[in-house]
């Protein structure tokens, strides 16, 4: 009951948000929130740390951008194509990476994603360093014109909610329970007769496809796609969002994505503010030092704040009735 009220409040807030805030910024936040939730499906519920999710996010972005711009596909088919490409890359990467466990899994995903990065850097259809520019938004199902930011915002909101609902459904399904069993104790899951590798692979492909949905939508919204989205720093960024919000919590990644994207966008302003308050000139260059700040947040989170914001709040609520 409480949960339903909570979701209702968030939904209302999400619907009126574009009246207050810049819709493009909000859509970016929504796409990254979906991306982080998809990533969390793997790290939080299956216990697999992938450091290669940029390959799906950016890969789907390029696929959708190319399909919309060069083939002139309708918007919904373009996004579907991006999702399929991300799922295919996920199938390939997942099949290789699940052959090793633990830390090796992470290194393999990182290395394979870097391979895709070089591929996108050299491939003719991505525009190399310049990126893929001028991707049209088109119209949804041929009748809803998406060139209006506000209309597009509600479409993106619907896409994100659908993606999120699917993730919630997966987590609470019997399949999700098996994933959690694998996370808790893999040998036990094996001895219970589950084909662990098939479950891991399916979780990996699902996570890849949903990350692809986020990436494809983002390209359609912004109208361009660049190498930033396939670089390993993007894989690191989504890890950070999930970590800040809380690994293995449903809404944590959303909170993390909002905080990190807001921080990235407003860091310059914050820097000027700090500089005017403290009189230290160095703060003015804070906007250019996103990497330093991200690195610091990483270190602080890992050392002192491993449950993340939502994880800490939940832990406090759980402790309260007992005392």
């Amino acid at each position, binding site marked *: 009951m409480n949960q339903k009220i909570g979701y209702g409040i968030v939904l209302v807030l999400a619907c009126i948000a574009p009246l207050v805030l810049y819709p493009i910024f909000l859509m970016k936040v929504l796409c990254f929130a979906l991306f982080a939730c998809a990533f969390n499906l793997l790290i939080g519920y299956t216990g697999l740390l992938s450091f290669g999710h940029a390959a799906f996010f950016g890969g789907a972005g390029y696929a959708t951008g190319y399909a919309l711009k060069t083939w002139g596909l309708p918007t919904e088919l373009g996004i579907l194509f991006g999702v399929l490409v991300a799922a295919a890359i996920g199938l390939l990467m997942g099949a290789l990476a699940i052959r090793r466990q633990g830390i090796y899994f992470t290194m393999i995903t990182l*290395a394979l994603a870097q391979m895709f990065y070089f591929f996108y850097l050299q491939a003719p259809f991505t525009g190399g360093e310049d990126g893929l520019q001028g991707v049209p938004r088109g119209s949804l199902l041929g009748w809803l014109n998406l060139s209006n930011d506000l209309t597009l915002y509600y479409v993106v909101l619907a896409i994100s909610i659908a993606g999120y609902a699917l993730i919630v459904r997966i987590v609470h399904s019997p399949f999700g329970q098996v994933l959690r069993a694998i996370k808790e104790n893999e040998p036990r899951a094996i001895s219970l007769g589950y084909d662990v590798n098939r479950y891991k692979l399916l979780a990996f492909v699902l996570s890849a496809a949903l990350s692809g949905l986020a990436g494809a939508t983002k390209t359609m919204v912004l109208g361009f796609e660049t190498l930033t989205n396939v670089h390993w720093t993007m894989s690191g960024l989504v890890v950070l969002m999930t970590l800040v919000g809380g690994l293995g919590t449903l809404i944590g990644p959303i909170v993390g994505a909002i905080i990190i994207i807001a921080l990235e966008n407003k860091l310059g302003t914050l820097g000027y503010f700090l500089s005017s308050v403290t009189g230290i000139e160095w703060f003015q260059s804070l906007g250019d030092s996103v990497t330093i700040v991200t690195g610091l947040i990483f270190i602080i989170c890992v050392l002192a704040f491993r449950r993340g914001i939502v994880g800490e709040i939940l832990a406090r609520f759980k402790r309260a009735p007992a005392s």
Partner: protein
Amino acid sequence: MDIFGIPIQAMLSQLLLGLVNGSFYAMLSLGLAVIFGLLNVINFAHGALYMMGAFFAWMGMQYFGLNYWVMLIVSPLLVGAIGIAIERTMLRWLYKLDHLYGLLLTFGITLLAEGMFRSFYGVSGQSYPVPDALAGGTNLGFMYLPNYRAWVVLASLVVCFATWFVIEKTKLGAYLRAGTENSKLVEAFGINVPLMVTLTYGFGVALAAFAGVLAAPVIQVSPLMGSNLIIIVFAVVVIGGMGSILGSILTGLGLGVIEGMTRVFYPEASATVVFVIMAIVLVIRPAGLFGKEK
């Protein structure tokens, strides 16, 4: 004299360049393996510390007029000290947790270090001259051998084999190997394991810094030089497996050579060839060439 239509000189010089890159892979993957063995941490910051090693060499020359040979010793010592500080203040708290936190912490350190050097020096590379004693080259009759590159390969081989010797053949190395197998038991014998862990981390990252100083005259010293390398080194580690020290050295050198040869025959694939080999190895022998199946 041509082989497959490619002049043998061009091929030999690419082979040498491949060996140079291979020695960096070997030194970095060796350090990663030693650290992972004792600390159970995959040190993502290895690339950043390699970059710092190169930068310190450049800064030593630029600001203090210290030459290459001095910095070849001082820079690894400095970076080793930084490593010891990182281990003592941060890494130490994560040993009991899942491996992934060690990776995430060192990833954060990488971003921090890269970001700081970028905000001071920008992304463009700083050039570092080849030391006078090693300038020029030797004509071997069949090819022209740049002295500095030969020195890099030689120096790294010596360092790698010295490390192998210390770990496999000396008493100190025996403690280290015992600590890798079962650190509690070694501690019960009265050996200061926490100190050993700290020094191991310091040594591992000093090795990375040594590689960085060696690399400074070959490639441009830039804040991004480390992270580009570390991902390839991860692939090298996956290919070779971290179980064997000689295995790490051989895999590193071998992959460097293969990469160099790819640059001759099919340049477009030279950036990806290591990753493709990794994928093939994972299909054929998932535990890695020198790894043991657990």
